[in-house]
């Protein structure tokens, strides 16, 4: 078992998990493109059908939240608006996310400025944000996967899903099984997304020299890289 082959196995596992979540995002996206979906928005009627939330209850679902976040267009009577469902952490009941959308509030959820909204809007491409603290939204530590929704050539919002960092870690560590050497998964900010080394903690930034020494391998489909790191244990004097 060479390290190279293990890194390839690792990137494949990460891609698979991401694609699995993006498949759910695609279903939300498709629901937002159904005929007449947007007809009632001016009157405040939802775009997504009630069936979309059921995706959260599907066996093996990694996402704990999903939905559509609408690009505000005040001139057309489209305010800030989310159609987002989440699984209650204590119960498994589904509830809608109703964040504070008052700009004058301490708790204002200024989502148009968030990376998960802004990157798909600017680039027209899908994006993965995190790990990050979703401060004024869900209040959880998350990875958020989003893609732009375009209707008649115009960006109208993003479809997306939230995966808790802990759930992502548990799932992927199980998929990877024992590895010959520790690896660290980093995002495009060099932030650690997953680590099998106690030296590099999830949420921290991986120093450039460690990244260069890797070497880092791109993970197909997501803006992440997998980096082999030093395998000395800390459990010795």
């Amino acid at each position, binding site marked *: 078992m060479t390290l190279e082959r293990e890194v390839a196995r690792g990137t494949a596992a990460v891609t698979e998990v991401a694609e699995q979540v993006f498949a759910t995002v695609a279903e939300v996206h498709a629901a937002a493109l159904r005929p007449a979906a947007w007809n009632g928005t001016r009157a405040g009627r939802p775009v997504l059908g009630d069936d979309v939330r059921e995706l959260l209850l599907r066996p093996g679902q990694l996402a704990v939240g999903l939905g559509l976040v609408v690009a505000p267009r005040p001139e057309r009577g489209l305010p800030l608006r989310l159609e987002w469902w989440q699984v209650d952490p204590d119960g498994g009941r589904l509830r809608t996310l109703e964040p504070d959308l008052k700009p004058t509030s301490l*708790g204002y959820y200024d989502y148009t400025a968030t*990376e998960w909204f802004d990157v798909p809007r600017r680039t027209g491409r899908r994006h993965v944000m995190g790990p990050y603290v979703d401060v004024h939204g869900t209040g959880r530590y998350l990875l958020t996967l989003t893609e732009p929704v375009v209707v008649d050539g115009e960006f109208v919002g993003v479809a997306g899903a939230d995966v808790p960092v802990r759930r992502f870690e548990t799932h992927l560590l199980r998929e990877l099984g024992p590895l010959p050497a520790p690896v660290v998964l980093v995002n495009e900010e060099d932030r650690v997304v997953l680590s099998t080394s106690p030296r590099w903690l999830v949420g921290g930034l991986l120093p450039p020299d460690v990244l260069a020494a890797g070497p880092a391998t791109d993970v197909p489909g997501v803006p992440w890289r997998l980096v082999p790191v030093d395998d000395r244990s800390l459990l010795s004097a």
Partner: protein
Amino acid sequence: MQLLSGDARRAVFAPLDDGALRSEAVVRRVGSAIALGLLGNGEQLPTETDLATMLNVSTMTLREALAELRKLGLVETRRGRGGGSFVRARDDVLGELADARLAELGTTDLRELGDVHGAVAAAAARLAATRASRTETARLREIVDRLAHADSVTGQRRTEGRYYIELAACAQSVRLTMQEMDLHLELGQLPWPPAHAPELLGVIVASHRAVVDAIEARDAGTARALTEGHIETRTLWSIELRLRAGQGGLVPRREVS
């Protein structure tokens, strides 16, 4: 109920557990939520039953609190269809409420609050210096710029609250972020020092700018020390305001602001 969610709802409507005088505690909690804009002007409060359940107080206690809030002019109740209790954000009343709260507290209470806030915010600043991305640092800087230009007491309070909460989020810590949110609901019950001495806003802004510079330079020790030092200063300001109040009253707000 469609009022608040996420951290804010959790914090504002967390059950009250400070024992005696629960209706006053409800008044203070709602007062600070208005001061921080978590409850906006004209916003409808949940029904009495819902609100009592969320805060874990009896309906009787809640009614007493609502009566007091009405008397203060912070809540207005309308009857009939479309009726209910609605928020009225009034800076003058909030200022008086804050001064009254300060007068109830001992200097040791203020020191304790400052000690905890110092511990939480200084730890967040240290971690943020090692973990914040460039985008996050830029956002912190933008919040401080907005603080420098905020022209109302409530605007300044909210913007500063966002600075500390964002700092904790830059530390990549849900727990520190929640702690900051809780602390701000308590700090929001106390006078805002620049309301008594406007030039202090400049001191606050300069201190936060220096912390953001340290975070950008990845200087964790400096970010931590500056944050700790500033919160110590803030605690002393509150204590001085408290002691002055004990010796014949605070400087009247309208003379200075």
